[in-house]
């Protein structure tokens, strides 16, 4: 018997789940029909679950039908307010409902990889702004995904402000969530997982490790660079003081001092821009985890298939032993039979009947699990491929943009020092 379902050979053959390659290419997704953005953030006060006053931030989600935009109708967008926790709920729902999809991540819950000047406070306006951008990015990613974009709960999230939470809970998705313990157990005990998924899981570990290393190193570099620039501001002050006691040199020194001040101040904008790069890296840091989740789900479905198959084998074996009388493996029943003599034929018939029922159930179970595992493998493989292409494109662009940022920083530096040099020459 076969322990694992056959892997799909060619990615572009029509799939079980109905998502064809063509659909992937065209992406007849929600985003094509609707313009979405997270326009603003506001502070609110309210009572939380334990009935205590708290301050929280809400984000304005605006939507507009694409044809209105295309026709140039200046239609006001529909809008509603959502909290971060509601975004989290949406994502959790998607994770459980589409375990074969690498679900786009949310912006971080708390500020991490912070270099000293950045605030780690969730209420800090810069943090809120970056979170707003991240939430918008999340919605755009989900709405442009060939599978996720069709989800009703997602549509509801975007259109109906009130009662959405209840609708989500009513789907009963929480009950479908895999228990952590079960998932962990599967990881350790699965015998024959798909090699490609294991490789992908290993890759997700690498991606996570490298992006987090990079984020940490970048934060340290930013810290140091900040120090270098700021110390130059001291030149500004001393040149100014010195210029007061000079005759011919005075003007040149004074102006040069101003340029040194400007140089020291320029680092603030430079590093703020770089935060955008850090955010792009963070998105993929979290994406790595989403990728791993898909691989783990495979381990789980494969494991459950293996368990079901094993269970079936064991039942069939029991049936065979009971009907033929030949004991192949140790069983308590066999022992007691030996010790106390065999049971009555009616009892035996009853047990045989029971086993036959269980075997029938077992076969159905195995069939179900085979389908579940196989479907997951096929759909996940499609999405992992889609994810890889997206990741390669996005990160490549991010790296190019980073290079552009560095060039801009160099140009600014050259400008400032050239200005200072001109002043020195006038001394």
């Amino acid at each position, binding site marked *: 018997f076969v322990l694992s379902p056959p892997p799909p050979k060619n990615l572009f053959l029509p799939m079980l789940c109905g998502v064809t390659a063509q659909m992937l290419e065209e992406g007849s997704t929600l985003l094509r029909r609707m313009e979405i953005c997270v326009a603003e953030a506001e502070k609110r006060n309210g009572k939380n679950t334990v009935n205590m006053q708290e301050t929280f931030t809400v984000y304005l989600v605006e939507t507009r039908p694409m044809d209105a935009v295309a026709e140039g109708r200046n239609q006001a967008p529909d809008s509603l307010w959502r909290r971060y926790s509601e975004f989290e709920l949406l994502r959790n729902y998607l994770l459980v409902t589409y375990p074969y999809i690498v679900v786009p991540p949310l912006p971080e819950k708390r500020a991490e990889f912070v270099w000293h000047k950045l605030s780690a406070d969730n209420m800090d306006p810069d943090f809120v702004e970056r979170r707003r951008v991240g939430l918008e990015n999340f919605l755009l990613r989900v709405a442009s995904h060939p599978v996720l974009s069709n989800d009703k709960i997602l549509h509801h999230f975007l259109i109906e402000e009130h009662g959405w939470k209840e609708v989500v809970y009513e789907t009963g998705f929480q009950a479908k969530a895999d228990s952590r313990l079960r998932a962990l157990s599967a990881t350790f005990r699965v015998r024959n997982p798909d090699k490609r998924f294991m490789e992908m899981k290993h*890759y997700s570990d*690498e*991606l996570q490790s*490298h*992006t987090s*290393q*990079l984020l940490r*190193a*970048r934060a*340290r*570099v930013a*810290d*140091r*660079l900040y*120090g*270098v620039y700021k*110390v*130059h501001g*001291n*030149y500004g002050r*001393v040149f100014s*003081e*010195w210029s007061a*006691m000079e005759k*011919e*040199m005075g003007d*040149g020194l004074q102006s*040069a001092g101003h340029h040194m001040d400007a140089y020291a101040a320029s680092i603030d904008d430079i590093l703020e821009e770089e935060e955008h790069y850090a955010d792009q890296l963070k998105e993929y840091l979290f994406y790595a985890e989403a990728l791993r989740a898909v691989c783990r789900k495979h381990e789980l479905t494969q494991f459950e298939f293996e368990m079901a198959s094993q269970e079936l084998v064991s039942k069939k074996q029991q049936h065979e032993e009971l009907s033929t009388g030949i004991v192949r493996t140790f069983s308590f029943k066999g022992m007691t039979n030996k010790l106390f003599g065999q049971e009555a034929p009616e009892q035996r018939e009853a047990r045989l009947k029971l086993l036959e029922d269980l075997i029938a159930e077992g076969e159905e179970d195995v069939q179900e699990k085979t389908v579940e595992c196989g479907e997951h493998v096929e759909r996940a493989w499609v999405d992992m491929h889609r994810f890889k292409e997206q990741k*390669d494109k996005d*990160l*490549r662009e991010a*790296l*190019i943009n*980073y*290079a*552009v940022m*560095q*060039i801009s920083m*160099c*140009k600014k*530096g*050259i400008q400032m*020092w*050239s200005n*200072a*040099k001109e002043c*020195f*020459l006038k*001394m």
Partner: protein
Amino acid sequence: VGHLFCFREAGLTNGTPVETSSPASTSSLLNRLQLDDDLEADIRDPYAEAAETRDLFVTVDDPKKHVSTMETYITYRVSTKTSRVEFDLPEYCVRRRYQDFDWLRIKLEDSQPTHLIPPLPEKFVMKGVVDRFSEDFVETRMKALDKFLKRVADHPVLSFNPHLNTFLTTKDLNKRQGLALLSKVGESVKHVAGGYKLRARPAEFGAMGEYLDTFNQKLGTIDRIAQRILKEQSEYLTELREYGTVYSSWAGSEDELRRPLEGVGGCVTTCCGALEDLGDGMSQDILPVLREYVLYIESMKSVLRKRDQSQAEYEGRLEAAVLRKQEDRTPMPLEVEKCQDKVECFNADLKADWERWQSNKRHDFKQLLTGMADKNINHYEKCQAAWESLITLLQDKQTEDKTSETN
């Protein structure tokens, strides 16, 4: 005779031309005025104009290590080109060590007490801390010695000093005699009787003193800032290196992204190299010059002190003489006149040197700061070039990929 006294005090030997000495006689006063005119021209642009009229060129280069049983030391080649009649030959080439420069400086200080002698780089270095024979140290010291000699050679009075002549021309400098004696002695004992208190320092010299004190402070601050920047840059460099390696190691687990990641890692490494060069440039070219000016300030301050002493002595003697005159009607003693001459000499020389010093200072700092700006510009240019070539590389790859896809 009285008028020649200052002349002889200055230690010039017989036969040396008079025009550039500074005695307080009428003719010499006229000479002085003439000298002032020349100096004014110098103030406008000392190096450009002096170059045209310059007839004495000196260079210090070519350091070599000498190992003997007793000691190891470095000598430098001192080359001279001149059209001056005081020199027998038009060109000279001798080898000198630091000790020899030190001897020259002491001799100049003793023989020209009313003039500001340029400073030498620090004599002593802590053996354990600094490697006296490292390329960087020797290079820095040599540049400072070169500057010292050039400043002396450009000085209208000092450049005619016979000790300079000896230094530039004699093969073997017979200086051992008296070296041990001279050290710091010449500075105070010879000319100042000591114990005289200054009554009224002329405002301009007071202002000079104040300027020097404040300037010293500012230089100290600038030196500290420059050092702090070096430290911060060094720490930045450490983190930047680590940062670059992360890109390279990530590249190892990617396929499509390998090239861009390696590219970024490479650029970061290039920037590290450029940063290292910047730091080296700062510590070799900028910091030593700052420190040297601190020494220059000290020299100037000591000359101011000597002038004060000289004036104090004169005032003291004058007062004593006036009292005695009132008592027994003796004429003004010669020594009082001598002192008056000395003070006037000193004041005039000092003012001229001060103007020269100010002008040099402006030029030197202009050069120093411009140099610093250039180093920073150069650093950024290197980095920018690296990142730009990466973008070209990546964008070429992109178009390359697109064309191969459509094909």
